[in-house]
């Protein structure tokens, strides 16, 4: 009687209200049941669907419209339709490409480090013989903590005189005033904050690796490294790709850490930071929207690459069928 397959739920009679409907009308019961089920399904999903569309779909269409206009709130008299001029302005601007490059760099480096550390942490959380509960609890703290709080902690730690880390570098060191040290600190803050999340996603993949397969490999004389690369990684591949996809897209949106640590000074700004500046400092809705659209397109391309090229199974895309 154990039902793991969600399709079992479609069995008529399970859904509340089904009987009521089928008594009222004299259509064939199965089709009537299906119709009631469809209706219920639609009604149940409607609120979530409407909110999500209203708060993302409409604004995106609206921002495409805004991006075609010259619209600076400080120059209300100059509001006009200008076609793709904003795109030309942004795409030929060296600052845009600098921050685009910085964002890419931060994304790739921090996700790569997080992956390695996350895998190690996942193995530790999965295998450790002592204090598993304690380690798991503590490792969750970075995941849960407010990013801005963590960012302030790093900021103060690297502030000359105030911070223990800045002082450890010797007097006169002010790492947040140079581009490379700043980028390093931003990556550190990102890695600290998100490695536990990466580890949890990977741990779920680890749980899918059959113990007996590892034992068998061990019997055959495979070394630990061979067991890891030949047995575990292939089984974990779907989980790994999902974890990388999520973290890559998340890392690409980086904003909080940069805002607190450098505010984007010394060429450390991400595209999110730049969009925020153009909107909030510049009050330039046209340019701001253009950037919003460009970021949206970039994210779509990254997701497409992951799904089509690497064959990441998007979670939910096959309704729990894959295990």
């Amino acid at each position: 009687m154990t039902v793991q397959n969600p399709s079992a739920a479609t069995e008529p009679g399970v859904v509340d209200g089904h009987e009521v409907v089928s008594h009222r009308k004299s259509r064939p019961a199965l089709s009537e049941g299906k119709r009631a089920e469809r209706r219920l399904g639609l009604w149940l999903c409607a609120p979530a669907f409407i909110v999500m569309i209203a708060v993302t779909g409409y604004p995106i269409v609206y921002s495409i419209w805004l991006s075609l206009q010259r619209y600076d709130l400080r120059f209300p008299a100059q509001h006009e339709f200008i076609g793709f001029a904003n795109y030309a302005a942004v795409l030929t601007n060296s600052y845009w490409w600098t921050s685009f490059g910085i964002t890419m760099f931060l994304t790739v480096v921090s996700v790569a480090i997080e992956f390695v550390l996350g895998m190690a942490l996942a193995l530790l959380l999965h295998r450790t013989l002592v204090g598993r509960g304690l380690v798991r609890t503590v490792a969750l703290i970075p995941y849960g903590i407010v990013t801005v709080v963590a960012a302030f902690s790093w900021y103060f730690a690297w502030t000359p005189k105030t911070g223990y880390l800045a002082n450890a570098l010797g007097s006169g060191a002010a790492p947040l005033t140079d581009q490379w040290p700043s980028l390093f600190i931003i990556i550190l803050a990102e890695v600290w904050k998100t490695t536990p999340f990466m580890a949890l996603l990977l741990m779920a993949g680890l749980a899918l690796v059959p113990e007996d397969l590892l034992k068998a490999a061990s019997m055959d004389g495979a070394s630990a490294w061979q067991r890891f690369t030949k047995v575990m990684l292939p089984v974990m591949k779907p989980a790994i790709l999902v974890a990388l996809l999520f973290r890559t897209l998340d890392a690409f949106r980086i904003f909080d850490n940069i805002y607190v640590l450098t505010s984007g000074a010394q060429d450390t700004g991400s595209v999110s930071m730049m969009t925020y500046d153009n909107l909030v400092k510049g009050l330039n809705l046209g340019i701001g929207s253009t950037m919003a659209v460009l970021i949206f397109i970039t994210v779509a391309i990254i997701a497409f690459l992951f799904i089509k090229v690497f064959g990441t199974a998007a979670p939910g895309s096959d309704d729990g069928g894959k295990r």
Partner: protein
Amino acid sequence: MATATTGRKVTWGVLDLLVIAFALIPVLWILSLSFKTKDTLTDGSFWPQQWTLKNYADIFQTSEFLRALVNSIGIAIISTLIAVVFGTMAAYAIARLEFPGKRLLVGLSLLIAMFPQVSLVTPLFNIERGLGLFDTWPGLILPYITFALPLSIYTLSAFFREIPWELEKAAKMDGATPAQAFRKVIAPLAAPGVFTTAILVFILCWNDFLFAISLTSTTASRTVPAALSFFTGSSQFEDPTGQVSAAAVVITIPIIIFVLFFQRRIVAGLTSGAVKG
């Protein structure tokens, strides 16, 4: 044999300690800063040389922080409630019903989970300006619900798939009304999943910074993460390091509580939603 096990235990123990240190040091540091006196704030030592509660007294004396705290709590709770209710409805439908548009909803949720929030900031700013929602609670609650929904739909539908629904049928056969069957059988089974989802959603909303600084402008709706960068210090010539740290510690408390008491659930929630799909 015994020594080998001890040796391995020691190795694991050392690794555990490394992880614990890595995870805790930044938290302990901001905690330590929040207890430092004005004069020792810039001494650079990791532990306070002189302890004080003045920073906490300072932030609770200004209405600025209190209001931000009320905003943070109120906005996060309301968003969580709505997102979990809507999410439960949708997740139930996804897990249990066949209907057209199911894939569309799942796809849309996925899309939003990957959506760059910053792309919404500019249009939402202008839309909310026009609707009068700018700098209000609903102005933040709406985007929070939106970004919490994918998380809650995924996590909940994963939980719902694990529920043995045939128990409901069995209860009905035993003469329970549908309401009784739901209340006595299904609700207790579903509650842990819903609760876990609520925690994850709350953490998500509690954490937000980008919307909080872009769509608010006054204490009417500014949440604590945004308010941190608005602290002025008790005098014009003083950096508000101590107060920022104290406020940061205050908003970390709920997170620590969640992590301490619900570690297992958070782990289960995060892993089920994202991987088992």
